[in-house]
């Protein structure tokens, strides 16, 4: 029942905002739905035996971890939206409020799906639900971004579907009756013809990789993240990109049981390193803060791919980084949204001196940047460190060194933009916007930041167990 409620409540919320005529009251539904969802997630996670609806739909440790991250991030965005949308009263926010909730529902469905087709359906739905939200600003730039997002992501998701068909067909070729249930596939994977399985994996890597924003399929990402409102950016980077990762993890769970696991490892590491490298290059000289965050997302999605490829202890780091990356992206995009409102610009040439114009926001943007780039005491330090250590201890020192070097370049590149935006002198000749920091614009990202700080220093035992369990689910593979 919990699972059903978690999926249905956001849908009911979407229906509610559709019916509410008032532009100012409508956003109030978001925090209500978010809180209910969060409570349900807490209940679902605290059950000793997680709910089992059917072979298709149940909650395992990996799903739990994703669900937790989605729900916490959505809560932050929902509370933030209430005040953010007050500044955007000129725009009708019905579609935005609906899209966010439909997306939450679909993301929840993705976390509980153990059927590759159903998972695909959920992920595709998140893409569609978010498309109108990227276009929230209704100008030439955002329409261009939306078109690229829609076309490239649809193409990617179509290829992933072809991959799923290949996967099913590989069972027909073997003479088995085809099924797309994850656990059954895992059991039979060693008997499947490697050629079909490999092709299926590549198609799904390209497909879900497009959704994650792995290079070279990342080209839509800076545009969409750059033109979408900050809170939509947070959901894209911490929600939708992770849905793509979840899809990749599921096919990984199937493929790694086979004898040709080295092929999959090497492919993932190669793809990941390439993404990190491309991101690092474009992070240097990036003047637009939201586009910068998009490349940072490409970088960290690359890191996820590398961690998957490394396997072993790196998987623990990956699962930890899932929380770390998701929440840190929330901090960064929400405070970037504030900066954008405060300066009416998201370019470092005009948006300078956030610390003076909006001190809380400036400080959070800086702290979020430090967290994202792996500075202690925040959680990503622990998770990235775990991935490095795994690379060196598992006999891939070159990979480890390359990742360390590229992350360093990315850190320096980002700091070239973050430092002037935070510490610079506010431009004098520009008109002052009516933006002022209110509790609801500061508290949500601050809460995420505090969480990142606390669990960076002291990981609560239940969370530690959950992360270990999730990593173990992927590791069984060999």
């Amino acid at each position: 029942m919990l699972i059903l409620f978690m999926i249905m409540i956001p849908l009911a919320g979407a229906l509610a905002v559709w019916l509410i005529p008032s532009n100012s009251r409508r956003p109030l539904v978001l925090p209500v739905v978010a809180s209910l969802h969060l409570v349900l997630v807490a209940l679902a996670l605290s059950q000793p035996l997680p709910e089992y609806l059917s072979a298709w739909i149940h909650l395992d440790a990996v799903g739990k971890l994703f669900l937790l991250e989605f729900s916490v991030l959505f809560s932050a965005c929902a509370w933030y939206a209430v005040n953010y949308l007050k500044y955007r009263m000129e725009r009708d926010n019905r579609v935005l409020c609906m899209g966010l909730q439909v997306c939450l529902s679909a993301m929840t469905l993705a976390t509980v799906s153990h059927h590759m087709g159903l998972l695909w359906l959920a992920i595709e739905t998140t893409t569609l639900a978010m498309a109108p939200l990227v276009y929230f600003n209704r100008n030439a730039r955002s329409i261009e971004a939306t078109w690229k997002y829609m076309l490239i992501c649809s193409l990617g998701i179509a290829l992933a579907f072809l991959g799923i068909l290949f996967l099913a067909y590989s069972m027909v070729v073997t003479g088995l009756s085809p099924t797309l249930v994850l656990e059954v596939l895992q059991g039979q994977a060693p008997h499947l013809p490697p050629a079909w399985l490999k092709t299926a994996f590549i198609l799904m890597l390209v497909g879900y990789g497009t959704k994650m924003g792995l290079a070279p399929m990342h080209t839509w990402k800076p545009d969409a993240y750059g033109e979408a409102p900050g809170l939509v950016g947070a959901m894209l980077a911490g929600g939708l990109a992770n849905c793509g990762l979840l899809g990749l993890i599921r096919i990984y769970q199937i493929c790694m049981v086979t004898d040709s696991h080295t092929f999959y490892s090497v492919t993932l590491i190669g793809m990941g390193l390439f993404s990190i490298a491309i991101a690092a290059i474009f992070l240097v000289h990036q003047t637009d803060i939201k586009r910068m965050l998009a490349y940072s997302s490409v970088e960290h999605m690359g890191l996820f791919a590398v961690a998957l490829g490394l396997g072993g202890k790196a998987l623990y780091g990956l699962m930890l980084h899932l929380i770390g990356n998701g929440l840190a992206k929330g901090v960064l995009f929400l405070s970037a949204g504030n900066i954008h409102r405060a300066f009416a610009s998201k370019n470092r040439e005009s948006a300078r001196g956030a610390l003076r114009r909006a001190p809380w926001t400036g400080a959070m943007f800086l702290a979020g940047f430090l967290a994202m780039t792996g500075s202690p005491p925040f959680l990503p330090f622990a998770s990235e460190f775990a991935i490095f250590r795994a690379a060196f201890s598992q006999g891939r020192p070159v990979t480890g060194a390359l990742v360390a070097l590229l992350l360093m370049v990315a850190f320096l590149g980002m700091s070239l933009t973050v430092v002037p935006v935070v510490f610079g002198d506010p431009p004098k000749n520009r008109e002052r916007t009516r933006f002022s920091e209110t509790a609801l614009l500061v508290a949500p990202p601050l809460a995420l930041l505090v969480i990142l700080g606390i669990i960076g220093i002291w990981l609560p035992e239940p969370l530690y167990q959950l992360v270990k369990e999730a990593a173990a689910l992927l590791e069984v593979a060999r």
Partner: protein
Amino acid sequence: MNAASDQLLVLVLLINILILGTHRTTVAIRAMAAQGVILGLLPILLYSIQSHTLIITIFVLLAKGLFIPWLLLGALKKIDFGEDLQPLFGYSGNILAGAVATMLAFFFAAQLPLAPQHRDLLIVPAALATILTGFIALTSRRKAINQVVGYLMLENGIFIFGLLLTESMPLMVEAGALLDLIAGIFVMGIIIKQIGREFSSIDTSRMTALREVE
């Protein structure tokens, strides 16, 4: 599995080339609709008429044969600027690329380790050829609406491959995939109208505001 389905698949391949070669968007969309109708007939031709295949047939006929073309033609009416935008490499270049892709598809399909009962069928080569030509149409066209037609062609190719699995795929997933496709095209249609309003053209190569400035 019979000869009729193979002949229909040949027709699908011809429509692919027609879409690549035509400079009239309405022709491309109508050809797309015809392809959708053929696709809808295939499940009941390949497998006997049962409730499962019948539902798919009705669904596909309605979605790919009627509703999606209607959506696209409606969008086109609103934004017809009478532009004739040459695709990348011109129309003849496109037809040539489509022909090469079709040949490659046949060659590649012959190498695939297919199940014995599928070896002599046109399904796999036709699916691969349609996917490839769809990809060519998608990437070479400059008009947003023609890019959508390319995307639909690619989806049709995937559907053809799915015919091998019709009996084993749960109906829910197939219906869901089709619903998602409709919703996707619907959203794309809205965006195209907005592009037309914003740029007074649906030439996507004019959309160049977003790029890395160095």
